[in-house]
């Protein structure tokens, strides 16, 4: 017997536009969210929460390539690099969401995309590859738009559900709240049984994004 895994993958924009305070706050927010992820995982002992991180800039690369159990997960700061190759990142994630390597019996994976800019490669091709995988289609998706320059339409398309909106993180405080929420609520959503939304008379969004306070003076 075995717990079913929840694969949680951070997709982090590490382009030059993230340089400075944004990348610093992102690293801080994720590091601070890890204990809360552990807490959610402990509340749901039947799910085995496994974390990975993929960064994308001039190229996409795994920051944590192998799935790490949340209890063993330690955050190592990501660094900025160059362009915004989101398509390559989505392509790499789609390969991980094939079965195998994904098991047939698992809870829905969580894909959390954080970006502050505009993709510089063929991101639609990457998104198509992701949508073509069974687990990619089923994944709980979260998108966080950092600052006013983030291309919300790309993030909206990544979400693939008109009932969901990207979370706006226009300040360090909002980013921390968004990361905290993505780290916990999305994991809960991934491990709750529901009637298939395609067949129910009433469609239910998989989770309800929070209302983030916008009273921070330090706005990006």
């Amino acid at each position, binding site marked *: *017997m*075995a*717990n*079913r895994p929840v694969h949680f993958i951070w997709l982090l924009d590490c382009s030059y536009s993230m340089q400075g305070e944004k990348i610093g706050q992102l690293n801080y927010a994720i590091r601070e969210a890890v204990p809360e992820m552990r807490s959610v995982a402990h*509340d*749901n*002992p*039947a*799910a085995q929460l496994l974390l990975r991180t993929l960064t994308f800039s001039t190229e996409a690369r795994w920051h944590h390539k192998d799935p790490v159990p949340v209890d063993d997960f330690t955050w190592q700061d990501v660094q900025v690099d160059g362009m915004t190759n989101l398509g390559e990142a989505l392509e790499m994630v789609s390969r991980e969401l094939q079965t195998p390597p994904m*098991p*047939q*019996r*698992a*809870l*829905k994976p969580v894909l959390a995309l954080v970006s502050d800019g505009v993709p510089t490669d063929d991101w639609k091709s990457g998104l198509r590859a992701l949508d073509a995988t*069974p*687990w990619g289609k*089923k994944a709980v998706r979260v998108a966080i738009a950092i600052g006013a320059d983030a291309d919300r339409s790309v993030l909206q398309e990544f979400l693939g559900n008109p009932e969901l909106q990207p979370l706006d993180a226009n300040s360090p405080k909002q980013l921390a709240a968004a990361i905290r929420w993505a780290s916990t609520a999305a994991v809960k959503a*991934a*491990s*709750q*049984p*529901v*009637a*298939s*939304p395609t*067949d*129910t*008379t*009433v469609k*239910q969004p998989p989770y309800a994004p929070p209302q983030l306070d916008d009273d921070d003076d330090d706005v990006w």
Partner: protein
Amino acid sequence: MSAPERRQPPREARWETLEHSVQGVNKQLNQDWYVAEGSGSASDPLILAVADGHGSAVHARSHIGARCAVDLFAAQARTFAELARSEGPDGTHSLSWLMNYARNELPRQLAAAWQESVLAHWDRHPDTVNPAAEPPPKGRKLLLYGATLVGAVVTPQLFAAWQLGDGELTVIGADGAVALPLAPVEADLGDETESLCSRHAWQLVRVHWAPVVAPDRTPRLIVLSTDGLSKSFASDEGFAQFMAGLDQRLAKDGGPDDVREALPGWLAEAARYSGDDTTLVAARRPEPDAADHGPAPDEPRSDA
């Protein structure tokens, strides 16, 4: 010259049932429900069913939906068995008529009765948290009660089973082969499932139809379980091995009693891994010579 020995008419098999359900880890209540009744004779059909309420906040009343599903299925199954009983040259229903009934009429009636039942429950027990609020639309009410169902009926002539949503019907054949005749071609990924609250739910019902052509080729074990059991295994093969092992344990001397004793522990272990309520009902066909002991279920007993 002695009088010729009086031969007893062949007696109908008496199926032996076992059942148990455990609550999932961290769940406030068990949202599964089940039934195992009857001996498998013509007048006392074997009826097995398990239902699994979806359980999340969106399906807050799914434990009631699961209970309705089982109770209504049992009623439908009794009607079906009665119709099957009158099958034959002198009866009113042909086998093909029954098959059509099983595939179309029963699912339609069951889904309609379930909807009617849960909506009536809502009318009797509307939202008390916010009574002034506008009542939700019908679809949202149904969603509250969402549940899956696996049910089976066995008579001397027929073995039929129905499934809507996840859960498993496992059949161990007379030769010991393990089969899951109602398994979907492509299993739902994650924890999404078709449901009695789905639109046109009756069309989503999968049906297993197996007339009994020879009693000794009837399945020797029929097991219905909710997905809390199957999802505790890392693979389909692990689940099939569990079912084969269950069959072997039952076949040993004192097996049924041993299994009854061990079953709560097995299911609790499964629930620890799947996190879900876990329910199993099983019926074991008696050994061929078992029918020679004691009166058949339909015969009057004499305690004199």
